[in-house]
Structures are given as structure tokens and as C-alpha cells.
């Protein structure tokens, strides 16, 4: 994985503050603990404007093939000086700049939202909320405490499911320094008595004034035994105020105001303190508490925000807004050495629980999780009769190794049995209503399209969030008719034609409505799938047809067939020929009925039955019934409704001795029943263009009828051969099944889809930059010009 860190903070004052130290330690722990990944560093240049920043970022991401980009300080504009802030306050990147690169962010706190009055005004608020917007859009958010997580969710509306609490650790050099002997820092700062120590600052949130007041009252009760060492930078004005309070209390030396203290001396001060007091009103993490504990110093701190969380039972907790409570607890501790000792021991154990290696492991694990590509599959449930509807769902379980797969069902609900199978465990079923909300978070979206009305639900989705289309038909004209003319919407029908034919749409419409042109002669696809990034077809012929229509990125996938075994069973000793629907043209089936007449006249064999199973297009069933009557086949031929469920469908297949699939292929596209016959090992008689069999052994897999030949005779001969020759039936069955298992597997189907997604996922080449170098006048070489090509 290629991981990039946003290093803007390293060019600002934040580098030396808590954020800098936190980022420094986290990055160090990650880089030194891990050799599997490569790390990159991005220093944004704000000086050239927003467009240049975008370009710089995108060049960086593209050139280094970045997988995860980690923003170490999302409120980076607030690290700038007031004048710089005014200049650069609009320089906030947008999530869309990152494309499919995953974006992570460290969230330290949302203090400006907790103390809005104090921190936000009309000038700052919009910029702060822009940063919040960016954080919300990130794929992973690392909060440094549970408090930060809860407040981010509560006050900033950030999705808590995206937030991982990683906490923090101690500075790597801290433990060693904590164990090293004292070098006399206490003397240097003029500390003369046992002391209580605090760190903090002029920020009222640190509650330093309350602590000083509490301490001065406590110290008076304890006969001025102690000093309070306030170790932080402080203005002279503040110092004067605090010293004045101490003088009023009668002990001007009670306070030691050190100003800024370097880390090494800070540790010494921690170690020398009787008590570390940190009654801050709010902390994102409260590292000083942990540092004091690591030095074995007993801790008194607030019972709120993250301080309670990180202290556990190893600190004395006070109500930070009550000076009395702070004072009472301080007296209690300072007058009971046993209690201090107990807190010291607990503190050492508590501090040891926080390590950078733990935090970095959590971060790396989260990177791994978010870097997986996300795929949405939008498809209807499979129909109980043989149909390409819902075939896409067969690929879903095979795609989980490469993608996080979410399935959105359109139309009817999926049969319950599908959910119960083990292979579907890793596929997430989602409500279609949630799709629009989540669509932008997917790397790929797969739609299944065909002529059934249930695909209409996918049309607006496809238009707004284009993706790769698995297409069960060459022509979606039937879908257009069903969704426009059949709903009495001629205007919409015109729109569909216009998408395909532009200015000549009027002429096409007139021709179609007047009957001068047949519907099958007018292809209509562009309105529905014109925006597709790629198309997966079910045969080479379909693929060629789509390419001829001007579509690009078309891949032919093998038809996926179920791997279930069917145990054949005789139907009252009959030899059953079955033609499975859907049927859209009765004439195509006449050769089968015509052949049946002479067949049933044969003697000495098993009775012959013929079944034609629906669904039927309008008028087809009636025409077939007429034909049966005309041929006096009422006892031998029957028309059946489409099976209501998969069990009924399976029974029909089990009772079939030979499948006869003579439907012409036109715009209706894939005819699934012949493929199912192969899979179930049911001997198959089919038109040559109905199934596409390529590869070794395909000639032995089915009895194929050439399209241009005398169909009636050929169909009769084929049916007769199968009826008379049982060994031929067995051989065809065996070969068909072997061929199907070799060729038409869901795994191979999913592979083709995966290829299509990968191919479509390759971004167009980005613009590149030519860097020019020149020697400046002072002899220092510089990069002087960036030229984009």
C-alpha cells in the first residue's frame, strides 16, 4: 500500500505543539513498525491558489500511486498567523479532488464547537465548518479519545461508524528520561519547597486560575509547606496577576511560574512533584496526565472529557468548575502520603497501557480496511423460470475477494434461500432506498439491464450514478415500449428515440407508429445505457452487435449456470419433450408440434408428451393452443404456466427427457433455457443461434439446428433420434453437462465482470508536469518553473 501523509502542519507552528508531537510519534511508530508499505509526504503549496493546489495534489497522488492519504491536521488553516489565515482561508481541499484514493484524517478535538462562543465568530465559523465537511467526507477518521469521537458525532454530525478511537502513547524518549537521574532543573527554576505541579497555558479552558486559587487556599491551611509550579509559557501580564494573588494570600513565593520548559526539564519537574494537578475543563486527550503518571507522580485531574477516560482509577478526580472541590481533594491527597503512593503505583500501570505501537496498529488496520474497493450491485432477483433476469447476482459471491460487495435488489425480493447459502455470507444486502445516499462512496457500480419492467427502477440510478452494465439483451426497445407507450406516454417514447437517433427521431417515430418499420428494426439502448462505463455481454455475437452500435469497452462473459445436480425422474413412463419459456413467437415452436404428430404415431415405444412452458408473450399462448387443436394433439401436447417457484421449475426439468428450444433470437437477447439444459444434462435440441458454444467438445454438447435449413424436417429428425436412441440421449447428456461445467461457471462469469471493472477503473492519463531547474543569482539552484503538459 502507498500511504501519503499531509505534512502541512510541519511547515507551521503546529509542528512544535501537541499536534506536531502527536503526528510525529504516530508516523514514527507506523514507519518503524512496518515494512510492508511505502510512505510518501505531501507539502501543500497554498501560495499559488486553489486550482494550483488541486493540481499539485492530484499530480502527487497520481505520480506516487497513492492508496491512502492521511490528513494529519484537518484544521490546518488555523495554524496560520491571522494575516496568513485571511489570505489562505479558502484553501480547503475537496474530497472529490482525491478521486478513488482513500482519505483518512486525525481528529484531535472539536473544542471550537464545545466552546463556540469563545472560539468561533462569523469570520472563522465558515472556515471551520468547511474543515468539518472535509472530515465528514473522509473514509476513516481517527479520534484521539472516545470523548472526541462522541463530541464529533454529537456536535459536528460526523458518522460515528467511520471513527476509530486510537488514543495516543508516550513520547519514545519519555520512559528513558523518566528513569534517568535528576540534573537539578528544580534549582534552576527556583523551586525551594515540595511542590504541586501543573502544565497548562493562558487558554481559560485549562482552568489555571481556578487551580491557583484552590492551591493558595490549600497552602494556607497546610502552613505554606508547598509551592505550585506552573510549567507553561505565560504572558507577563498573566504572571503579574497570578503573583499578585499569591502576595495577597501572604505567600509571594507560593507560585513558581517557569515559562516555557524544554521536554527534558519538564520530565524532571514531573518526577520531583508531590502531586500533578490538571483540572482542565476540556481535553481532547490530556497527554500531561499520562506523562505525569509515567513519571510515577500522583495525579489530580477533572472528572470530565477525555481526562476521566484516560485516568481510569489511577487519578483523583475533581469537578473542575468547583474551586472548593479542587481544594478539598488537594488537601486530602497532600495530607495522606499513603494515598499518594497508591495513586503513583496505579498511575505507572495506567500509563503503560497507552503505546504508540497500539495506536499505529489500529491506524494501519483501518487503512487496510478502507483501501478495499467498494462495489454496488444493482440487479433484480432471479426469476423462477429460465431467464437472464437476476443472473448478475450469481457473480456477487465470487467478487468478495476483490471488493466489498453491496447488493441492491430491484423489483421483487430475492428468494429467502439465496441468503441462507454460505457463499453469500460476505455479501451485504442493502435497501434500495439507501442507494442514492451511498452511491458516491462506491468505486464501482454494476447494473443489470434487460427488457423486463423490473429494470425500470435502475434507469434513474444509472443516469445519476453511471457504472458498468451487464446487458441481457441487444436492444432495450421492449423496455422502452413498456415504460412509455404502454403507460400512454408518447412524449417519453419520443425522448427515448431522440436519445438514440437525434434529429431523425421524428421520422423513426412516424415510421414505427404507422407500421412502416418493425419494432425489431429500431434499436433503442442509448437512453438507458448510453452513460455506461462499460458493458458486459453474454455472447460474442451480442458483443459484436453492441460494438457495431458504437459502444466501447464491451466484454463477452460466459453465461453463468447453477452447479446444482438434478436427479431425473420419469413422468408416468412418458418420453417428455419440453420447450421452456419465455416465448415471444408462437411460429418458432410450430416445427416441434408438427414433428410431434408423426412421432406419436410410432408404435412399440414409450408414449410421447410435449410440454410448452411459459411465460408467454401476449397472444402466443392462444396461437399455440390453436395449433395443438388443429393438429389434434390435445392428449400429447400441453401448455403450462411459468413455474411459480424454483421447486416447481426443478420438477419440470427433472421430468424432461429432451429440451427443444427453437425460439429465434432477436432483440430479446439471451435465451437462458438452452444453457440450463446443458447444465442439467438434459439433451438439447436448439437453433444454432440460440446458444453460443465455443471451445473443445461443444459439437457433442447439443443437437443444433442450422437456421437456414428446412427446420421442420431437421427438428423431426432430431426429436426422432433422441426418442429412439437412448444411448445418444445419455451421451448428449454427459457431454453437455461436462461442457457446461467447464465453460459456463459463475466463477468464470465473475472473472469477466472483474476484468471489466478493472478495465473501466483505469483512469484516463493525468496531465503531467515538466519541472525546470535553473541557477538563481546567488548561485543556489532552484526549481523555477512548472509547466503542465
Amino acid at each position, binding site marked *: 500500500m502507498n500511504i501519503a501523509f499531509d505534512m502541512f502542519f*510541519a511547515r507551521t507552528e503546529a509542528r512544535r505543539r501537541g499536534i506536531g508531537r502527536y503526528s*510525529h510519534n504516530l508516523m*514514527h511508530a507506523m514507519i518503524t513498525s512496518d515494512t510492508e508499505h511505502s510512505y510518501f509526504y505531501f*507539502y501543500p503549496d497554498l501560495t499559488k491558489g486553489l486550482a494550483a493546489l488541486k493540481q499539485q495534489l492530484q499530480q502527487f497522488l497520481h505520480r506516487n500511486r497513492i492508496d491512502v492519504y492521511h490528513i494529519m491536521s484537518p484544521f490546518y488553516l488555523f495554524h496560520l498567523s491571522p494575516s496568513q489565515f485571511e489570505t489562505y482561508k479558502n484553501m480547503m481541499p475537496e474530497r472529490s479532488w482525491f478521486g478513488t484514493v482513500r482519505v483518512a484524517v486525525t481528529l484531535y478535538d472539536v473544542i471550537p464547537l464545545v466552546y463556540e462562543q469563545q472560539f468561533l465568530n462569523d469570520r472563522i465559523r465558515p472556515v471551520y465548518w468547511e474543515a468539518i465537511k472535509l472530515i465528514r467526507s473522509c473514509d476513516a477518521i481517527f479520534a484521539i479519545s472516545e470523548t472526541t469521537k462522541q463530541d464529533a458525532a454529537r456536535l459536528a454530525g460526523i458518522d460515528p461508524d467511520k471513527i476509530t478511537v486510537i488514543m495516543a502513547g508516550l513520547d519514545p524518549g519519555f520512559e528513558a528520561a523518566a528513569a534517568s537521574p535528576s540534573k537539578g532543573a528544580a534549582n534552576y527554576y527556583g523551586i525551594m519547597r515540595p511542590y504541586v505541579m501543573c502544565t497548562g497555558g493562558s487558554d481559560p479552558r485549562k482552568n489555571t486560575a481556578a487551580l491557583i486559587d484552590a492551591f493558595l487556599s490549600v497552602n494556607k491551611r497546610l502552613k505554606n509547606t508547598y509551592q505550585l509550579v506552573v510549567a507553561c509559557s505565560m504572558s507577563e501580564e498573566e504572571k503579574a496577576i497570578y503573583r499578585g494573588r499569591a502576595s495577597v494570600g501572604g505567600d509571594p513565593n507560593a507560585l513558581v511560574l517557569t515559562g516555557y520548559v524544554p521536554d527534558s526539564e519538564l520530565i524532571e519537574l514531573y518526577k520531583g512533584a508531590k502531586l500533578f494537578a490538571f483540572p482542565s475543563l476540556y481535553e481532547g486527550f490530556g497527554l500531561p496526565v499520562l506523562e505525569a503518571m509515567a513519571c510515577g507522580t500522583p495525579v489530580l485531574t477533572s472528572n470530565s472529557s477525555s481526562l476521566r477516560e484516560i485516568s481510569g482509577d489511577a487519578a483523583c478526580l475533581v469537578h473542575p468548575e468547583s474551586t472548593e472541590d479542587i481544594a478539598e481533594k488537594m488537601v486530602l491527597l497532600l495530607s495522606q502520603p499513603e494515598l499518594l503512593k497508591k495513586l503513583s503505583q496505579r498511575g505507572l500501570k495506567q500509563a503503560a497501557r497507552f503505546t504508540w505501537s497500539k495506536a499505529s496498529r489500529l491506524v494501519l488496520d483501518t487503512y487496510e480496511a478502507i483501501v478495499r474497493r467498494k462495489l454496488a450491485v444493482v440487479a433484480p432477483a432471479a426469476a423462477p423460470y429460465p431467464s437472464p433476469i437476476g443472473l448478475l447476482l450469481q457473480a456477487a459471491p465470487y467478487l468478495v475477494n476483490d471488493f466489498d460487495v453491496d447488493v441492491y435488489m430491484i423489483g421483487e425480493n430475492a428468494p429467502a434461500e439465496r441468503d441462507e447459502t454460505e457463499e453469500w455470507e460476505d455479501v451485504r444486502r442493502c435497501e434500495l432506498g439507501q442507494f442514492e445516499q451511498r452511491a458516491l462512496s462506491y468505486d464501482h457500480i454494476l447494473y443489470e439491464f434487460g427488457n423486463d419492467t423490473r429494470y425500470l427502477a435502475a434507469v434513474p440510478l444509472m443516469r445519476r450514478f453511471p457504472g458498468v452494465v451487464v446487458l441481457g439483451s441487444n436492444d432495450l426497445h421492449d423496455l422502452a415500449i413498456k415504460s412509455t407507450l404502454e403507460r400512454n406516454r408518447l412524449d417519453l417514447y419520443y425522448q427515448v428515440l431522440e436519445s438514440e437517433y437525434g434529429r431523425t427521431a421524428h421520422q423513426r417515430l412516424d415510421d414505427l407508429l404507422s407500421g412502416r418499420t418493425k419494432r425489431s428494426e429500431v434499436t433503442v439502448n442509448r437512453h438507458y445505457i448510453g452513460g455506461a462505463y462499460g458493458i458486459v455481454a453474454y455472447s460474442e455475437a451480442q458483443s459484436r452487435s453492441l460494438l457495431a452500435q458504437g459502444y466501447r469497452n464491451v466484454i463477452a462473459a460466459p453465461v453463468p449456470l447453477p452447479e446444482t445436480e438434478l436427479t431425473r425422474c420419469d413422468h408416468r413412463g412418458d418420453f417428455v419433450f419440453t420447450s421452456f419459456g419465455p416465448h415471444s413467437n408462437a411460429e418458432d415452436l410450430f416445427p416441434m408440434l408438427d414433428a410431434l404428430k408423426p412421432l406419436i404415431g410410432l408404435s412399440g415405444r414409450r408414449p410421447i408428451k410435449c410440454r410448452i412452458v411459459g411465460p408467454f408473450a401476449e397472444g402466443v399462448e392462444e396461437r399455440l393452443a390453436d395449433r395443438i387443436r388443429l393438429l389434434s394433439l390435445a392428449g400429447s401436447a400441453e401448455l403450462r404456466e411459468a413455474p411459480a417457484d424454483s421447486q416447481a421449475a426443478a420438477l419440470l426439468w427433472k421430468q424432461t427427457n429432451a429440451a427443444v428450444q427453437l425460439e429465434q433470437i432477436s432483440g430479446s437477447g439471451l435465451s437462458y433455457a438452452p444453457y440450463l439444459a446443458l447444465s442439467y444434462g438434459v439433451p438439447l435440441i436448439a437453433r444454432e443461434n440460440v446458444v453460443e458454444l465455443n471451445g473443445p467438445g461443444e459439437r457433442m454438447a447439443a443437437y443444433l439446428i442450422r437456421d437456414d435449413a428446412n427446420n421442420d424436417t431437421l427438428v423431426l429428425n432430431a426429436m426422432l433420434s433422441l426418442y429412439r436412441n437412448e444411448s445418444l440421449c445419455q451421451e448428449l447428456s454427459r457431454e453437455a453437462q461436462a461442457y457446461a461445467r467447464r465453460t459456463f461457471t459463475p466463477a468464470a462469469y465473475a472473472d469477466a465482470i472483474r476484468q471489466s471493472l478493472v478495465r473501466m477503473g483505469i483512469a484516463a492519463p493525468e496531465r503531467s508536469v515538466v519541472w525546470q*531547474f535553473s*541557477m538563481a543569482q546567488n548561485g543556489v*539552484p*532552484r*526549481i523555477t518553473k512548472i509547466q503542465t503538459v
Partner: protein
Amino acid sequence: MLISKLCGEKDFLEPWFSRGCGELRESFRYHRKLWEWCYIFEALRERSMLYPFRRGLGFGVGKEPLTSVFASHGCEIVATDLDVAKAKEQGWVDTNQHALNVADLNEKGLCDPALMEQLVTYETVDMNRIPSRYHGKFDFTWSSCSFEHLGSIEKGKRFLLEQMKCLRSGGVAVHTTEYNLSSNEDTLEMEVLVIFRRKDIEEMVDSLRRDGYRVEIDYTAGNGQLESVVDIPPFHFNPHLRLQLGQYVSTSIGLIIQKP
């Protein structure tokens, strides 16, 4: 962890050497220059010096790829070399070994150009007069075959002590130079090149230790098959672990010095 040592044939089969070649995008070959780069890279890497916020100071960087590799790891680098006039005088410009600009420091594109711009500063520095503004400012210093060109053995020794002042507490210096395998008595000492004898190195190590710096050193010279091959001018041989300089056989020595 690596310690100060001579370039040895066995090192070329160590994982750290392969790692170094990968980082430097160099194909494997038995060449002591490649050994020096990989040695410096590894000595710094294993001491946690190669990551953001670390500051490095390179002396006599020429066009070597280390500057750009260190920058690609997020280190802030001050890369220094002679000024052009002096480099010309010493013949480095003619042999194409002197960096004229930042592009030269990233000739192989080992670092993102924008990152180079942010993290690398190029300055001209005479190694005999290290500016005091560098003192205490760096986490690591390095040079590859540079301090033998300072004019004399004495100047080389002085450089090694002086450059330590540039390090912060906990910092590390890694330098490679010429080592005389033929004699511990006589050696080559010219204005443009000297070869340090074992006793010179020992004196340097003693001085460094006296000043409180930590050095661990192994003077073992290998006797492998490839180490018996001595390259002669114009030094285009592979293997090139040892070479003839005047009447002396020389190889590289790497020194790792830790500031407590």
C-alpha cells in the same frame, strides 16, 4: 546493527545491501561505491533516522542519490558541496561528479520533485570550514568518499571532529573514506587525495571517544575471492572492491559515530 567497518565481499549478500540497492534503484554489482551508499543508507535507517522531521546534513554530496532518497523518506536535508569554481579547480566538474543544481541531486527521480523542493536545501560549504550556524541543528550527517579530499590527513581528522558539532544529542554521523590495506606506515598524502592508514583511523576514533562520542569499529579485512581482485585505472572493473592508488591497495571504510 552495522558498526564501523571495511567494505567486505560478504556484505554484498546481506539483506541490507539488497534493500539499499532497491531504495537507490541500482542494479546489483560488486562495487565499493554502491557499498558505501547502501552502508550509509542502512546505518541511518536502522537508527531510525530516515523519517519525517529528521534533519540531515550531507557533505560533498556531488550527484550521489542519497540526498534524494533521504528526502523521499521525509527527511529535511541540507546538501552541501564545494562551490563551482573550487570544484572545477579540483576537476570534479569535468568528471561530472559535482552537483550544479537541485536537479542533479535528483537525477534518477528517486524523490518527488515537489518534495525535493520542500525538503532539500543546497548550499556550498568548504568542509574545512564548517559554518557554526550548522552546530546542533541536525539529527544526522553523512559523506561518501569526501573527507579524503580535504588536503591532508590532519584536515580529514579535524573534519571528522568538527562535523560532530553539527549533530543534536542522539544524532549519528556516517562517513566513508579511503582505507590503506597495504601499509600502516607509508601512505598517499596529496592535496587532492589521501589514503587513511589504520593508525590514522585509530587516532580519529580515539579523539572521538575522548570527546564523548561512541564508535564501535571492526578492522577485519576480508579475504574472499572477489577481494583478491584489485582494480586499476581507469577503474571500470567489476568487481571493484579494492583498487590500486599509487603503490597502495585501498578499499572503503565506513565510520558510524553516535553523539550521546
